């Protein structure tokens, strides 16, 4: 082979190798499966798994929240879909909600998830008519209220409130 072609091949090989290496160190995949998913994100071909989302929504409406979240994680492993992440946040809210007291750790996870939704799509509005809180800002304020300790927490009338 002529030296000219070897030089061109070498430059192409090195450029490709350095790009792949830089991508891996930037994306920090934790498994071979994640390498493929993160590659899809970079190339713009990433999409969520609709079937898993539907399965997650069905579990969510049946109050099987952990099962629902597992389905949502399978559907959107890169956490880049506002709709799926909104359901994740809502599942933490519903699971953590209590008539007497709320589970602060679950509410905190919910707050993290709803913040992700706001980052992805600040104007997101859920098309699910069965939800009382349909925007991330409503859900966020509900979660933040739940995390605060105030004098109103001692109000016995709180026992009559309903989960949203």
């Amino acid at each position: 082979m002529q030296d000219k072609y070897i030089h061109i091949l070498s430059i192409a090989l090195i450029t490709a190798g350095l790009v792949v290496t830089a991508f891996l160190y930037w994306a920090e995949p934790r498994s071979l499966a994640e390498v493929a998913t993160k590659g899809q994100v970079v190339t713009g071909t990433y999409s969520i798994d609709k079937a898993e989302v539907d399965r997650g929504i069905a579990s969510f409406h049946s109050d099987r929240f952990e099962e629902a979240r597992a389905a949502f994680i399978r559907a959107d492993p890169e956490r880049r879909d506002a709709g799926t992440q909104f359901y994740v946040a809502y599942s933490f809210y519903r699971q953590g909600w209590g008539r007497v007291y709320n589970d602060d750790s679950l509410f905190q996870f919910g707050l993290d998830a709803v913040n992700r939704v706001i980052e992805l799509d600040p104007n997101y509005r859920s098309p699910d008519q069965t939800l009382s809180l349909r925007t991330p800002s409503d859900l966020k304020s509900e979660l933040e209220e739940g995390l605060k300790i105030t004098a109103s927490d001692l109000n016995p009338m709180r026992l009559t409130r309903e989960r949203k």
Partner: protein
Amino acid sequence: MKVLAEENIDAIEAVDEAEISTVVRNLPAKAQPAGHNSVLSYIILPTIFLLVTLLGGFRFGGADNSFIFLKPELVCLVFGAVLLVLFLRSGMIAIDGWFSHHYSGLHNTADGFVLLTLFTASVQLFNSVLPERGLAFWVVGFCFFWTLWNDLFAEFDAVKLLRSLIALFGMAFVVKYLVLANLTAPASDSWIQSVFQNPGKEAVTWLLDLPRYAKGTGYVQFFTVALYFLGLFLTPQTTRK
């Protein structure tokens, strides 16, 4: 008169490019200019250095064997640059043999890219053998700095430099992947359980702030270090035919 004539002859010899290429330095046999092979220098060599670049910061997590890609610290870039200067000073790489106005732009660019992979591989080799954080990072980092600083002012030839580097990186590898790795407590679900099972190791891990990696990490890094030195051995002094 005779001395002057000899000096003139020396000067003429020095500017004669053909003669320069035949000057035999004290190099390993495969690194002699006469042994330059395009496929080896432009395809195999960068592939080796790219593999080192990829694997130098690669670790397996201690708890679940997950992949961890550690970006190099700034000090690794500094050490990598110093190492390149050492390669040039020792004559292992003749800069006028890699870049020349007699070469085509493409040839010079390709040579620059190959040397770039040598630099990235050197950076990642330091990333591989330097402890990640804590007291061990500072101690081993200081030892590297001390050795490289001394080497910068020492008289070297390529063989001595290669031997010195094998000893230096071999020692650092042993310290990190044999000594420190054996002092590190294994990853455990419960902190209390690990304190009762391995009190000594847990104390050392905590005191030295040692990361917990799976055993596979040491194997991968062993081959990374070996590949780097294979790459150095194959690196020609010049790419001139």
